[in-house]
Every structure is written in structure tokens, then in C-alpha cells.
């Protein structure tokens, strides 16, 4: 009997040793002590969203339905506004000349159509008869509406959606029918990323923007590139690839536009990076801390990465890293992580800038809702699901 009991005790003692102790990043008790309730501000928890816009003092987000609220912290709750009658599932949104443009699907969820509106719930269906095939994707940049169809052709409208012109200089963009693309504008030039190829110029007048890296031309690369982000203050163009590397080029519209720098390391576990944004955060010392934020892509891992003081002078200076709490110590507002978004694939970021270094950073995720990170004069990891 005593031997049996002794055996039982030994077994019980070994049970905890069998657990592999995965470290939390901040400590279990420490995290609990600083945890705050995540408040839900009416957006569906599991919605997917790619685009948010700000106009006339309001923020709008396309998350299957369209939601709006006052910008710059003027309102916490989102309000659903009417989608076009008989159309639903609004997937993309853009702003041109103060008018909101959306792609909304028909009742069969098969074909998206383009609508314009002022954000009050009334929508006008746009004439897209010049677009040869079914619409695939939309980007609105610098008041120009770009659309691809399912043959990979590129169209643009510089008259706010009244007419669309096929961009023969770059059609088709893709070898596949439904390729992803991104466009940004800065320094007097447009930049077009068609997964494996990069172009610069203007609608209807694209030229190959063929930077090299690792001795290879851009288009020789097998991995696809995702979002583009132009940082106006530094006159720098960023992109990231599906292996988690970040690329940057200074003065992209100039002659040095081919001198791309690729980060030395990639995001942990080789997560592809998708959304990008640059934040400028005032520090307690009165200076400014620059931070590039990057979100993991849909087909890779999950989570959110940072590059502090990104520079092109050295490859190391572009390495994406998981946020570390040590950064918060610099802050004069110590309010640590209330909840993380480490499970989310982040399609894009949106910065609602209040001025004077204050902003709300929104992360638009795939299937994990919209999250907000409020900067209160410092580095704050207080992500809150909207």
C-alpha cells in the first residue's frame, strides 16, 4: 500500500515537469495585472476589412457593411450606414475628390459593382461598361480610381468615376486572372506594384521601375510583394514581401530610385508582411521617434511587427521585430498592452492623425475585426477591438 502511494506521489510530482513552459512575452501575472477589458464598439468581431478613409471629420470603414464614426477620437461607437439597395458585402472603399467610392456585391455575391456616395447612405451606381470583364479590385489614390478586372487588365478614372480608361501601358498586369495589386503616390509620381513587377509614372504612362537587390532584378524575384507605402517626410517608398522582408528606397521618383535596400532579417517565422504605415511619436524628451509598423499577411502567420527608426543606410535598420515592452519605458505614458492582436492577419493600417503627434492607429484585419491603438503621447500597446 505504501509503495503504491509513494508511486502515486512520484507520478504527481512529475506531471508539471511534463508541461513545456511557453513564455508569455510579458509575464503571466504581470499581463493579468495590466489587462483591461476590451470594449467592443459595434464592429463585428470577425469581420474582414481592407480599407478605411477619413473625410469631412468622419472615419468610414468597409467591413462587409459600411460603418462610420467621428474622427480624431470624437466618438467611440461605429454606426452602420445603408449599403446600396440590393447590394451588399462592401469589400473595398476609397476617396476621390471628397466622394466615397465602394465596391459592393450583387445579391448572388458573385459580381462587384462600383458605387459613389457622400456617406449619408445614398449611393449612385457608376457606369463601368468600358471595363471588359468583371471587376476584381479597386484602389483610389490621389483622386484617381484604379480598377482591375478578372482578366488582369488595369483601368483608371481621373474624372471621379464618370468614365474609365483601359491602361494599355500596363494591361494585363498579371498572368493570373485575380492578382493583387497596390498603388501609392508620392513625390510627384505614382508607384504600381503588380506582385512581381513594380512600375512608376502616371496612369496611362507607366515605366518599369526595375530596382535590383541581391544582384537580381526585381522581376526575377520569385516571391510576391504586397502593399506599398510612401513616407512623405522622408521621401521614402516601402514595400514588403511574402517572406517577411521589408524593402525601402529613398527618393523613389529620382535617379536613385533603383537603390533599394532589403532588410537583413525577415519577420519571425518568415511571416509574410502586408500592411505598412509609418508613425511619428513624440517622446518625453521632446524629440520624435519614428516607427514603421507592419502587419503579417493572410497566408502566413499572424501578428504585428515594428521597425524603430527605419533607415536605408544599413540593412539591419529595416529588420521587422515583434514589439518589445522595453520601448514603453521611454514613454511618459506607461500603459502596457491591454490585449494583443497577435492572432490577426493585418491587411492594412490606417492612421487617424489628430496633429501634435497624437493619432489613432487602426489595424484592419482578415477575419479578426478592426483594432485601434491609441497613442496618448507615447508608445502604447493598448490595442482595442473596435
Amino acid at each position, binding site marked *: 500500500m505504501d509503495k503504491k502511494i509513494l508511486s502515486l506521489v512520484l507520478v*504527481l510530482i512529475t506531471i508539471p515537469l511534463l508541461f513545456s*513552459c511557453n513564455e508569455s512575452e510579458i509575464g*503571466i501575472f504581470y499581463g493579468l495585472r495590466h489587462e483591461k477589458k476590451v470594449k467592443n464598439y459595434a464592429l463585428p468581431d470577425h469581420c474582414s476589412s481592407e480599407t478605411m478613409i477619413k473625410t469631412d471629420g468622419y472615419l468610414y470603414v468597409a467591413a462587409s457593411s459600411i460603418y462610420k464614426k467621428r474622427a480624431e477620437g470624437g466618438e467611440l461607437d461605429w454606426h452602420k450606414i445603408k449599403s446600396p439597395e440590393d447590394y451588399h458585402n462592401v469589400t473595398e472603399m476609397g476617396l476621390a475628390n471628397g466622394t466615397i467610392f465602394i465596391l459592393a456585391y450583387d445579391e448572388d455575391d458573385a459580381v462587384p459593382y462600383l458605387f459613389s456616395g457622400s456617406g449619408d447612405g445614398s449611393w449612385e451606381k457608376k457606369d463601368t461598361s468600358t471595363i471588359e470583364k468583371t471587376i476584381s479590385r479597386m484602389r483610389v489614390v490621389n483622386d484617381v480610381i484604379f480598377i482591375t478586372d478578372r482578366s488582369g487588365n488595369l483601368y483608371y478614372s481621373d474624372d471621379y468615376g464618370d468614365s474609365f480608361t483601359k491602361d494599355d501601358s500596363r494591361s494585363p498586369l498579371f498572368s493570373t486572372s485575380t492578382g493583387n495589386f497596390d498603388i501609392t503616390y508620392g513625390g510627384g509620381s505614382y508607384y504600381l506594384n503588380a506582385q512581381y513587377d513594380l512600375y512608376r509614372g502616371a496612369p496611362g504612362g507607366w515605366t518599369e521601375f526595375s530596382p535590383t537587390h541581391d544582384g537580381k532584378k526585381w522581376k526575377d524575384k520569385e516571391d510576391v510583394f504586397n502593399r506599398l507605402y510612401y513616407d512623405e517626410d522622408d521621401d521614402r517608398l516601402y514595400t514588403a514581401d511574402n517572406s517577411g522582408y521589408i524593402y525601402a528606397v529613398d527618393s523613389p521618383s529620382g535617379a536613385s530610385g533603383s537603390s533599394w535596400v532589403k532588410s537583413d532579417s525577415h519577420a519571425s517565422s518568415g511571416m509574410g508582411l502586408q500592411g505598412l504605415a509609418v508613425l511619428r511619436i513624440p517622446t518625453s524628451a521632446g524629440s520624435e521617434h519614428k516607427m514603421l509598423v507592419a502587419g503579417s499577411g493572410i497566408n502566413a502567420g499572424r501578428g504585428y511587427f515594428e521597425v524603430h527608426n527605419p533607415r536605408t543606410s544599413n540593412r539591419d535598420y529595416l529588420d521587422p521585430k515583434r514589439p518589445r515592452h522595453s520601448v514603453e519605458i521611454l514613454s511618459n505614458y506607461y500603459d502596457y498592452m491591454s490585449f494583443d492582436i497577435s492572432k490577426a492577419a493585418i491587411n492594412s493600417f490606417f492612421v487617424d492623425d489628430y496633429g501634435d503627434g497624437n493619432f489613432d492607429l487602426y489595424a484592419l484585419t482578415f477575419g479578426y475585426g478592426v483594432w485601434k491603438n491609441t497613442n496618448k503621447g507615447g508608445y502604447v500597446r493598448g490595442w482595442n477591438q473596435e
Partner: protein
Amino acid sequence: MKHLNKKLILLLTLFVFISGSIFAASDDEDDDRDTYVESFTMGDQMFFINGGVFIPLFFFDRSYDFGKTNLTLGGTGSLCWQVFLSNHISVGAELGGMFALSPNKRVLYMIPLTAKATYWIRFYPFEIPISLGLGGNLSILEEAAHIDFIAKPSIGFFWNFNEEWAFGANATYWFVPQIYSGSGMVESGHSMFGNFMDVTLSVLFRF
């Protein structure tokens, strides 16, 4: 009618007989209790089953900055085996478990395994065990886990039903210093000392 009367008489007789047996047995047990004096010798063993409420108290860090745990009231339970070294002292081991919820409904689990020593104060038919458990505690929160030291002082109050069974209640303090050296992902400044307690009902079986 006669048959009915006979049956009725038979039933009443049976009822009186059974009742008498029961009451007689109860009287016997009462007599046993009146004359029973607890006396344990080295090697006598006992087994406890405890269950009750887990009460989060507070955290404090290395600079004695106190703060809330942000946990809800939780549930706890444990199994404990002990052997008597003398009439008043027993030692053994206890395996427990608890759960409580964070503000975002994340579940904290803690599984302490302790070596336990108890001193028994007796005034029949009641007993007051005063114990100290020392051992390891596995904390689990979502995908994170950490093993820490734990100290669990406790006090109880038991009523002896008979020489084998006793029923009672315990109040136990859980002191869990969660120390990080800083060599891993968590910096040492995030070390935190957890303070909790539980109040449980307990069933004790001696053999």
C-alpha cells in the same frame, strides 16, 4: 377485508421492526461517538477531497507596488494524501487546481503540487488542522505557462462523523512568487508576487 387487515398488520409490524433497528443503530453510533477518542499513530493515513471558491487577492512587484489581479472569483479543488507521524502531526502531498477569468474572459489555471505538513489541534468531536504546503505551481494562461514556487498555509475546521469520516472547511492562502530572471523573453522587472486564497469544503477519509 380480512386479507387487507392482515396485510396492514404485517406492514405495520415490519415498519416498527425496521424503525426500531434504525434508531437502535443510531443510538449505537451516538454511543460510539460519545466514547470515541481520536488517537493516531505513525503510519495511519488519510485522504482529503476539497472543493470551493478561489479568491484572487492582489499582486505586488519587487518594489512592493501593490495592484489588483483583475481576476474574477474562481473555482478550486484538490486531492490530498497524508500520513500521521504522531497523534498531532501528519505529512503528505497535495495536488490542486484552480481557474479564474481575466477581464477579457481569458482563463488562468494554476496547478499547485505541494508537500504538506499539518499539526492537528483536537477537541472531540472537532479538529483544527493547521498546515503548510510548499512546492511547485504551474500557471497557464492561454498558450503561456510558467512553473513557480508556491507556499500554501492553511487552517481548517473538521467535525468527525465517525472514526473514518470527517467533514469540514479550510481557508488556504496561496503565495506564488512569479520570478523572471530576464534571461528569457520576459524582463526581470515583470516579476510579480501573486497572493490568493481559497475557501473550501472538505471530506476526509482515514484508513
